[in-house]
């Protein structure tokens, strides 16, 4: 019995102490450097003028996670300051960000999309207006809240009709009639003329931007839509959008059968002539070897539109609720990222962004990014009106309607618009 007593006493003690105090092997807060690479790097780093506080970065774009970690190591080598890059899967980013901010865990720097997303988190934004690097942001590309510059853009992105140059001539895709005829001709040749895909943004989110962006004042139009003062079904550009989408439904493979992966696979293997996609999709061709044709991007020709939709998907912001030393260190990192050669080089060559800064030259752009870059430079663009949509509406409200439209054989474009109006009215209540 004695032995048991001892064991039990020990157990209770472990339980209580262990459970309350936290167990061995745990890091005591974010101040201690992580076990791996960064620790050794700091030892060999040259002593900088002033040792800054360790910062943490949390961002949504999984594709740059690895390059960003590598860059953080280089930053430590060059300046001796520590940067910890946190990981996050794309979909869950905002939820995780909210959890981390709610529990005051940081991060020092995080990424945020424009529009309602930024508005929701704006109480955390540190005012960057006086920081040196924001002067280099290309005109109208900075993230502003209440008149202050609070975010630096990742870069610009653009979308439109990505097409196979050996199958499609842009001259034949300029209005509804020629667009429909091109789809019919391709169908007769056994090709799929245009492919959307089942993911929310690729099914409806991007393509519906065009009729919004073509309004004289998209933001005002969306406000009116929220108040129920206008209807999509009564607006000229949307009515034509209904006809476009009917032409797509009648002449191409049902996008509900297509995933982003197969959409780009069909395009890469020449089965699909056009996809409504953005410059980011070029990365999907990597494993297909030589494509055997040239790829281009042209505007979605709704209501005579001849411009690509170009915008900023994400911005770097600094957490204003962090302590002043941490904010200072965070700003120093952003300054380094956007002004040092190492940082600028990483943005262009490793992140593969189209820079939205006047002091960074684009280089080695793929054909799609080149088209977007040129459009952005010349100003021949339409905005991402979707940025002004109520929070979550594309995924939660518009996509279910679009799914219904594409799955119900007899639903027309006009009925589609009416249902979109109804869904919008409900969501913006």
């Amino acid at each position, binding site marked *: 019995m004695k032995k048991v007593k001892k064991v039990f006493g020990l157990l*209770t003690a472990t339980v*209580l102490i262990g459970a309350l105090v936290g167990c061995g092997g745990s890091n005591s807060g974010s101040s201690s450097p992580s076990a791996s690479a960064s620790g050794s790097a700091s030892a060999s780093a040259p002593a900088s003028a002033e040792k800054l506080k360790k910062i943490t970065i949390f961002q949504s774009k999984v594709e740059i996670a690895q390059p960003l970690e590598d860059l953080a190591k280089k930053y430590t080598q060059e300046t001796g300051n520590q940067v910890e890059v946190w990981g996050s899967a794309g979909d869950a980013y905002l*939820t995780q960000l909210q959890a981390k901010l709610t529990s005051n865990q940081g991060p020092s720097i995080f990424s945020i999309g424009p529009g309602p997303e930024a508005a929701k988190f704006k109480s955390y934004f540190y005012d960057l207006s006086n920081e040196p690097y924001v002067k280099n942001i290309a005109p109208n590309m900075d993230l502003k809240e209440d008149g202050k510059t609070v975010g630096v853009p990742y870069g610009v992105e653009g979308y439109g009709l990505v097409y196979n140059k050996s199958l499609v001539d842009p001259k034949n895709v300029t209005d509804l009639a020629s667009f429909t005829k091109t789809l019919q001709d391709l169908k007769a040749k056994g090709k799929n003329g245009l492919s959307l895909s089942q993911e929310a943004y690729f099914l409806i989110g991007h393509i519906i931007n065009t009729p919004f962006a073509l309004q004289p004042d998209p933001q005002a139009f969306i406000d009116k839509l929220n108040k129920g003062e206008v209807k999509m079904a009564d607006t000229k550009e949307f009515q034509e959008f209904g006809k476009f989408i009917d032409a797509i439904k009648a002449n191409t493979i049902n996008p509900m059968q297509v*995933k982003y992966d197969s959409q780009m696979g069909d395009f890469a293997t020449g089965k699909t002539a056009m996809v409504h996609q953005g410059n980011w999709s070029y990365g999907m061709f990597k494993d297909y070897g030589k494509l055997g044709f040239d790829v281009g991007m042209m505007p979605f020709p709704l209501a005579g539109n001849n411009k690509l939709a170009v915008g900023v998907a994400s911005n770097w912001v600094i957490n204003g609720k962090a302590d002043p030393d941490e904010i200072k260190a965070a700003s120093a990192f952003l300054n380094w990222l956007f002004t040092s050669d190492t940082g600028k080089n990483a943005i262009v060559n490793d992140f593969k962004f189209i820079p939205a800064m006047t002091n960074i030259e684009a280089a080695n752009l793929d054909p799609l990014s080149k088209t977007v870059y040129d459009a952005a430079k010349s100003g021949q663009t339409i905005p991402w009106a979707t940025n002004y949509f109520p*929070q*979550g509406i594309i*995924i939660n409200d518009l996509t279910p*309607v679009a799914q*219904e439209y594409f799955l119900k054989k007899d639903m027309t474009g006009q009925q589609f618009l009416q249902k979109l109006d109804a869904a919008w009215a409900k969501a913006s209540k």
Partner: protein
Amino acid sequence: MKRKDKGWFALFTVPLLFIFTTVVIIPFIIGIVYSFYKWDGIPANPKIFVGFNNFVQIFQDDRFIASAWNTVKFTVFALIAVNLLGLVFSLIVTTKLRVSNAARTMFFMPNLIGGLILGYIWQFIFTDAFNFIGDKTGLHSIFFNWLLDPQYALYAMVIVFTWQMAGYTMIIYIAGIQGVPDDLIEAAKVDGANLWHRLTRIIFPLLMPSFTICLFLTLSGAFKIFDVNLSLTKGGPSNATEMFAMNIYNEIFGYGHYGLGQAKAIIFFLVVAIITLTQVIITKKREVQM
């Protein structure tokens, strides 16, 4: 209770209950408080007290009612399928066949694959494999992309959930079956009881604790289903498979209606708790102490 017994009671239960309270109970109570506020979930943003307004709103929310109904349908199908299959599996693999052990591992394997990615794998099956089989056999009325049909998409979720949970309940049923003393069964055999009688008169009554547990675990798992919902159907097509947990998640994180989402959670919790606790109490009464 004697004073000394009280001390023992506390010593045995308090450590766990303390942890449990800080991790589950207190957050749940905080959630209840928030259900009376209009708030987007960001600490610095304004919280407006709205009384029972959120609760009133719920009953005007067709989509929430629809998702609750989806969840009920799903749970009923899943409850039957999972437990039937789990019980059958457990009975098969406890027989003295040479392949029993291997089969047991294989039946349990699906459970080892966690959450989200499971849905992605099954997407390949319902899209690629089903189309492939449909093309080869010509049975297009059965083998088509189930995920695009509002009705079949729900069945697809039931299949995936069953596939994952059957092995789970199987091992609990096995634990129960192995608690049945061999001599009891041998005695019954000697008395000439056939397989059906041995099952219904001896094994099933002694399996009551396992039934209680399995029914409840399946029930709570099915009511709370989220991962598979998100990765397999994302609630589509046209919200036909949006389950309750996903609806709440969308309300809280998609729209940023934190208070409303919490109110939904509480309503649903109350309804489900009443149903399932009744079930637990009923089946618990039928258990026998050895």
